């Protein structure tokens, strides 16, 4: 059984861009280890010849003509953004 440690959790949390309080890391490490341990059961089953199932009805992506169907609704859609200016979403400076 693989045990996740503090640095694993920190690494995963960064990949997910997810802030986690320092004091909660050990508990997440335990939770995650336990969940992965439960999932370990799957390895007891031979699935070499099984096709992965991505869609419960084995459906395929429906295609449609490439037509404009939505009207531009920028003001309405941006009305609840945390910060905007001149039709743009504002974020901290990215490029120095």
């Amino acid at each position, binding site marked *: 059984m693989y045990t996740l440690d503090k640095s694993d959790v920190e690494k995963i949390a960064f990949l997910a861009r997810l802030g986690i309080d320092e004091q909660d890391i050990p508990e997440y490490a335990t939770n995650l280890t336990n969940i992965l341990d439960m999932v370990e059961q799957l390895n007891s089953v031979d699935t070499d010849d099984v096709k992965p199932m991505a869609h*419960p009805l084995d*459906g395929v992506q429906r295609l449609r003509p490439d037509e404009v169907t939505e009207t531009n609704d920028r003001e309405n859609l941006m009305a609840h953004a945390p910060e905007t200016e001149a039709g743009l979403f504002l974020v*901290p400076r990215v490029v120095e």
Partner: protein
Amino acid sequence: MHNKTIAELISGLEAGEFSSVELTQSYLDRISSLDQHLNSFITVTSERALEQAQQADAQRAAGQAGLLNGIPLAQKDIFCTKDVKTSCGSRMLDPFISPYNATVIEKFNASGAVMLGKTNMDEFAMGSSNETSWYCPVKNPWALKAVPGGSSGGSAAAVAARLAPAATGTDTGGSIRQPASFCGVTGLKPTYGRVSRYGMIAFASSLDQAGPMTRTAEDAALLLNVMAGLDLRDSTSVDKDVPDYTGSLNNELDGLKIGLPKEYFSEGLDDAVAKVIEDAIKEYEKMGAVVSEISLPNSKLAVPTYYIIAPSECSSNLSRMDGVRFGHRCENPRDLNDLYIRSRGEGFGPEVKRRILVGTYALSEGFYDAYYVKAQKTRRLISNDFNNAFENVDVIMGPAAPSPAFNIGELMDDPITMYLSDIYTIAVNLAGLPGMSIPAGFVNNRPVGLQLIGRHFDEAKLLNIAHKFQKVTDWHTQGPGQFV
């Protein structure tokens, strides 16, 4: 008035016994006086409800009544509702006022239904007890110290307590059926793709499905008539005719072949719950059904398969909550990463974080095949079990949950035991099948639900099977003492 079913309310409105405004006001009054005990609503939309009711009354007067004209409904707070807060039970979306309606909401609006408000739920539908909601837990109207189940716990509690004649729920791993079982209401999870997911905030896109939560199977049929159907705005919505689900409710069950999976009656099942389910099956035998034992040999793989697939899809879906375009944003971000990390860290609660972490890990470089692809393969084995079983039986029955409602706080420190409360419902989502929970009795005064599982698109048959049970039993008419 509040003990009437939707079918009875429709007759009452048609006969002019009361108006939609009167009906709506009576439910709003009940919510305002009783929901303080339950916390089943996050938002009550009183003004809007009365406007919709007035409009419905006018439409009826003009002879233009839709299928659910004037009927008040509660909507799970996972459905986007234009100009109304749509929180999904999360601090992350506490500031989110949706700029558009989910297709389900549009369909209810077109049918003349009235929205009473938005119901409480586990955060982003991740939970089995409603305790992960940012808006505090919902209480079970049958026992206020018990959970209502989850994630559609607010909807289940509101319907059980007669604060709404019906509500919507969504079900990714049991989130309609398990709370329906815990609160003693009728809940239907349709076949994957039967109801549009457009505007229904995504948790695990290959599993999510919306359905009705009502007091009777007949009412569930009335709601599904409005909810079901192809929607070009949801690419997984299925192009298949929608029957009139009320049309076959009274079909005879003589010769119906019922399969009981032995795996659903083995260790982990509360003995008293097993007894309730066995008694319910006997009612079907009296109606001429033939019962046989079946096997779903890969049942034990359902929970581990689900806890790879659902968190993986959730970690992807929830990446849109980044503090940039909508939702919660942290104060004074230093740089872009700090903005993402702190906004998400503050916006999401512990269970959502746990699942994002599991999903991120399972999808990360080097682990994808070992976890996600492996789980997709075991998913097919689970689905094949059902296909094999349905060669010999028409419907599968068993418990909806291994126990009646547990107490608030009882499982919160133990995520895996909490996950196991969905042990009988999860496989149905993995296989994309329709499933129902209907009230079948009580254990220690807490309701127990019988689960019905059908073939793909067999909703009409499930509703028929459920309705016939409700014609010969009265579990579904019983309500929690303080609220009836």
